[in-house]
């Protein structure tokens, strides 16, 4: 698989480390009433779709950026690559 890095251009996926579902960006609020349930869910439960999947890849053998890659888990086709920083900020995260 080739990941089209937004800054560096097309790079082989073997340069990257895979973390998992991009929902991991949205860490639950530890002060919420149901924080325990939310964190158990955050740590362990996944949608695991067959089809489009937004997921976190880390460019360990490159610029060490975190990317949000939209990839089809049935065909391995990659349709969108974003910097995870941009995704997190667009969702209202400050850092």
């Amino acid at each position, binding site marked *: 698989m080739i990941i089209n890095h937004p800054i560096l251009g097309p790079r082989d996926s073997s340069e990257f480390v895979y973390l*998992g579902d991009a929902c991991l960006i949205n860490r639950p609020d530890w002060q919420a009433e149901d924080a325990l349930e939310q964190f*158990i869910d955050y740590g362990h439960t*996944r949608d695991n779709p067959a089809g489009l999947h937004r997921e976190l890849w880390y460019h360990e053998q490159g610029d060490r950026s975190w990317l949000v890659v939209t990839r089809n*888990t049935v065909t391995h086709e990659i349709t969108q690559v974003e910097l995870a920083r941009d995704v997190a900020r667009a969702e209202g995260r400050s850092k």
Partner: protein
Amino acid sequence: MRYSGFRVIKEALTGHRGWGPAWRDPDPQPAYDYVVIGGGGHGLATAYYLAKEFKQSRIAVLEKGWIGGGNVGRNTTIVRSNYLLDGNEPFYEFSLKLWEGLEQDLNYNAMMSQRGIINLMHSDAQRDAYIRRGNAMILNGADAQLLDQKQVLEKYPFLNVKNARFPVMGGLLQARAGTARHDAVAWGYARAADQRGVDIIQNCEVTGFRIEGGRVQGVETTRGYIGAEKVGVCVAGSSSRVMAYAGMRLPIESHVLQAFVSEGLKPVLPGVITFGAGHFYCSQSDKGGLVFGGNIDGYNSYASRGNLPMVEDVMEEAIAMFPMLGRARLLRSWGGIMDMSMDGTPIIDKTHIDGLYFNGGWCYGGFKATPASGFVYAHLLATDTPHDTATAFRLDRFHTGHMVDEKGVGNQPNLH
């Protein structure tokens, strides 16, 4: 029809006209007591033990495609019980004991061959870990033997034991481990279950559950609605997709694991052997091909094929272990979809919906577990209590903190 040596001779003398189909091809009934979803090794074994050990009747196995067409037909056929943790080892040892009597029990030649497995060790720390694991195995009634370098070389004289980075210091041997003919396991269970009245319904994909008042009533399928008292889901690889029909999200990611087979060679590998400095396992099939594999590719996938970086990685490990394989040609490679659970351990449990049960999360260790998985799942379905050897495989263990993490890498499925 019982299979036997006399039968083979009789059929040979009469032109093989007496063989019939090994199982029926029934149409689904309107309702069953038990519906098992998934006609793989585990599902067929579950139906068989429900009928045989727990004397239940009106059982159906629903299969989307043809039976044995999933992971039971695409694994590396290794059977073993060399686990460390108390939650695992009694279960896998129970499974190995069932393997030992499987062919007589099923009246089917599953080509079970107890040729032994050796896990190679390459450092002092690894030797300590293997001693600990071997002792845990012995405490749970399994067999284990620590081999030094000389003993390993007696069995595998061609091993590159003086490798500068990964010298082979010895290995952990489980002599009762071995291999079995994977397809024959599915066919043997199917035939034996069918003889006990189980309806095996192929080309019947489940498209939904009918759930009323917190209780499952039956399943919607491509061949119509089928009512059921109890529904056992047994579809490792597609668990998240099927359980989503019941509104459940699972602690599972689906990943692709590749396996490989070389061209047929003369006998070189007497048993199963694994590389301790990486993740590589190899045995030789009765046809002569070396059957081997390594790690999962490492990203979520439902495609039954992998990518080249992992192919290269596995080949490097093969050559590091057996430099002589450099001239052997690779014949085939293929991929299968694994239910990678969050702690690397399977789940066999009830769900919060009455009458709906779940069996999955086998990571890439499901084949060796086939008999025990079927037995304990049948126990759970029939009695509503977990079998003694399967009390740790709970669905709620991530809530209670009772994870069974054999490898100790935490909730990162692609590292198990």
